[in-house]
């Protein structure tokens, strides 16, 4: 096995490490908000009904609970700490959903082909962007949402997540598996 292992190691050694991405600065610190309001926007845009609820009580650190009612399958996602993303995604995978939570990372470069209105957007693959959503000058924080699951083979619904809520929003449906990260888009203000 050595030649294969040596060959891969040589590639690792010869490649500059990618720039450190923005990472959580607050392990152990209370987290205010997470799942994006923007996810609501894009999910509706692609025909996935999102029944949104903001929990004011103390929900678990993370959860993915599937409900089946009248032939409609929904999954409720709760997430409080960015560090729990892998566990939450493992839960979503175990529930056989094509939904994945992806961290928002400054300088992210992980192009994917996005789907809009059921069709793949033509052109080269692009990095998804997440936009911070503001309401009366305050960032929108969401810790829990319920999504009607309409699983489409080969496509994944990406829900972006940021550690401080400033970049919550955006995401989309992509072809294939979810990217490793989502970039930062422009701020978005909710009127009202």
């Amino acid at each position, binding site marked *: *096995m050595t*030649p*294969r*292992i040596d*060959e*891969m*190691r040589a*590639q*690792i*050694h010869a*490649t500059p*490490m*990618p*720039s*450190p*991405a923005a*990472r*959580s*600065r607050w*392990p*152990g610190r209370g987290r205010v908000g997470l799942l994006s309001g923007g996810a609501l926007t894009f999910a509706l845009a692609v025909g996935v009904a999102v029944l949104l609820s903001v929990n004011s009580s103390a929900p678990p650190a993370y959860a993915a609970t599937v409900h*089946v009612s009248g032939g409609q399958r929904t999954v409720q996602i709760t997430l409080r700490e960015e*560090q729990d993303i*892998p566990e939450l*995604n*493992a839960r979503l*995978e175990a529930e*056989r959903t094509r939904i994945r939570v992806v*961290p928002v*990372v400054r300088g992210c*470069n*992980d192009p994917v082909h996005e789907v809009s209105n059921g069709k793949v957007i033509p052109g080269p693959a692009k990095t998804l962007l997440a936009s911070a959503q503001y309401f009366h000058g305050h960032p929108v924080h969401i810790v829990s949402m319920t999504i009607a699951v309409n699983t489409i083979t*080969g496509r994944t619904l990406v829900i972006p997540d940021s550690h401080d809520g400033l970049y919550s929003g955006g995401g989309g449906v992509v072809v*294939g*598996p979810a990217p*490793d*990260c989502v970039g930062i888009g422009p701020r978005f203000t909710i009127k009202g």
Partner: protein
Amino acid sequence: MTSTIDRGKPAFEALYDRTAERLLVSLTRRTQDTEVAGELWAECWAAAFVGWSRCRASGPEEEEAWIFGIARRRLADYWRAGAVERRALERLRWTMPAASTAEDDELARIAELDALRDALAGALATLPEPRRRALRLRIVDGLSYPDVAARLGCTEEAARAQVSRGLRVLQRTIDRDTLNYTQGV
């Protein structure tokens, strides 16, 4: 806390040196296919290299859990899609390390695939007939869950439960042997 941890390339290379072979053997045992395992393994390392700055492990053991977690996710993607993604490899413009037949044979020997197949066959034989049949329909024949349910004469949820429980038994067999291998190194 995590800011004090060395996330530089030497730490990544140290992780690679510690776990590269073990990860390859683990994937080989899970896929029962040296070629597929090699492709998954290479993609895992490329993905890990790209995501190294986001690794929050606080020590070597957690780092190893992190890379094995990546492997589990890639493996799950493979089972679902039926093909190995090469996104991270392509992004880094890395090539898939080629392996000779002799190298693959050596990998199969180290992974003890023959013994594992016997063990899995033994574990499969211990399953109740409906569960064994559900596994065969889903895994061997590649049927969808609705089709498995139709063949078994049960609901789709029940079919999923049968397959899931059966896989857990088989997984325990693989994990037990992998543990033995790890302890033997």
